[in-house]
């Protein structure tokens, strides 16, 4: 049998593209959400990540090694910064919801998304990626509010071996409210904050301007997570 490259390539492309899932689009809370029937909202957070220097774009192993070697002093300094107030987001959300006279329960467990069964819906693009139904059963909830802080620290883009921009303070999180009756997002908000330095950033050992940028990103990020519920 004669082997033809073209159909093989097309077939591979189709298979590979099938593996890429479209990112979840933001979902706004419906205006009358709070007025609708009684709700019991559980609030849970994933593990707060350790602060790091993120160097996306340094793709190959050698690129990563070179990029990391370039930022050893900065990494050392980033280790001294704190994720101030991130762990308190849960308590703040509970406070905001309680002030709205919504029953809100803080779930003490640390949510590990990897341990939840995956969930797929062909018809609903706002279906949650994981099956959260166990929270309804275990805690008698109508909704689950998840705060998943994914990255904290400093972000600097790379193209292989070469940085393509200055480092910036970085906060990355996603917050979502899952309607446990159908496992869909009633609200979904990705938060990506990058705060740059207005002039010089390379000031070892304390990097004052970049440190300021990190804390600016942190505060702006936390505010952004809370904002949807503060209105």
């Amino acid at each position, binding site marked *: 049998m004669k082997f033809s490259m073209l159909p093989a390539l097309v077939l591979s492309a189709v298979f590979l593209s099938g593996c890429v899932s479209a990112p979840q689009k933001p979902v706004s809370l419906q205006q009358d959400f709070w007025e609708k029937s009684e709700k019991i909202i559980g609030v849970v957070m994933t593990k707060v990540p350790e602060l790091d220097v993120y160097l996306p774009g340094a793709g190959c192993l050698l690129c990563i090694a*070179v*990029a990391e*070697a*370039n*930022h050893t002093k900065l990494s050392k300094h980033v280790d001294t910064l*704190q994720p*101030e*107030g991130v762990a308190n987001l849960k308590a703040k959300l509970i406070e905001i919801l309680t002030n709205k006279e919504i029953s809100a329960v803080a779930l003490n467990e640390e949510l590990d998304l990897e341990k939840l069964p995956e969930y797929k819906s062909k018809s609903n693009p706002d279906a949650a990626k994981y099956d959260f139904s166990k929270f309804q059963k275990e805690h008698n909830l109508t909704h689950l509010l998840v705060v998943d802080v994914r990255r904290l620290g400093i972000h600097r883009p790379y193209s292989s*071996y*070469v*940085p393509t*921009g*200055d480092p*910036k303070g970085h906060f990355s999180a996603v917050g979502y409210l899952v309607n446990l009756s159908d496992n869909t997002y009633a609200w979904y908000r990705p938060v990506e*904050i*990058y*705060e*740059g330095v*207005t*002039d*010089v*950033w*390379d000031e070892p050992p*304390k990097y*004052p*301007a970049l*440190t*300021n940028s990190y*804390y*600016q990103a*942190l*505060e*702006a990020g936390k*505010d952004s997570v809370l904002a949807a519920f503060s209105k």
Partner: protein
Amino acid sequence: MRQFLLFASIAMLAACTPPKNDAYTKYKKTDIQVTEHTPVVIEAVGQDKVMFLGQMIDAGNNSTKGAMLYPGATGEMFLASIITHAVLEKSMGNSAKSKLAEQSNKVLIPYASVLDNFSTKSLLQDSRALIHLDDRFDVIDGKTSSASSVVKDDQQSKQPWVVRSKPVYFMTQDEQAVILKNVIEIYSNKKQKKPIYTNIAEVISSGHAASKDASSYWLEGNPPRLRRESIELFSESIEIAVTDLLSKLSDSPDKEITFKLDQGGKTVYERGYFVAKNENRTTIRTLRGWLKSMPSESLIELSRAD
């Protein structure tokens, strides 16, 4: 191997991108003894007219959100960077930068009549009565002794200290507040080339209550409030810098926190620590050592390190 080393060196060097401005004002303080009746001259370097700019309009990139200029170290660079609002992202072309700067300055149009007649010389003259320095200093005029402070006999043998400032004012885009950024250098005598103190003192006016007609607020009175308030901000900036030089601010870097400030209707975050606080005004030191004085009520939230 040689090629790899060369390539790795280039990559390493590329990581240390050159600063956007060649330098910035670095906080420097020298411990120094001050004797009684030390004469001091206050100077302002800059153009004939007091420099006012519109606070930069948000360029739509969160990395410059709320950003304003950080003046450079040398006079020329300082002025040049102000004029071009050099803090904008590299991605913006020069024409885009100047367009944005031009657009930002439109906020000053209603105040042209005040600003056109506001000279640096009059700023110095009018602020003299408001500047209250440590008792050991006698503020004198550069050329003639002032009416308020007669030069004492022992002063005549003393070289006067020089407080040299480069004030730049910004009007916020919502016209709620005026912000002074003052680069201050202090010399213990006129001939000295290196200052004993260098810093930026930023002073934020008390924002007025939301009003539909902000310009009438700033233009009210004779002289207009904009001028009066600018003079007060200048006096405050000189006072806090001299107080800092004399180590009379309560520095406690271990109590570093993030401040959330309401600056002209805009939320601004700054990391630093308290150095002075009273009923009306709070002064913080930023991580670079710069001083920032603001109305106490504009601090809307604090996030403590603990």
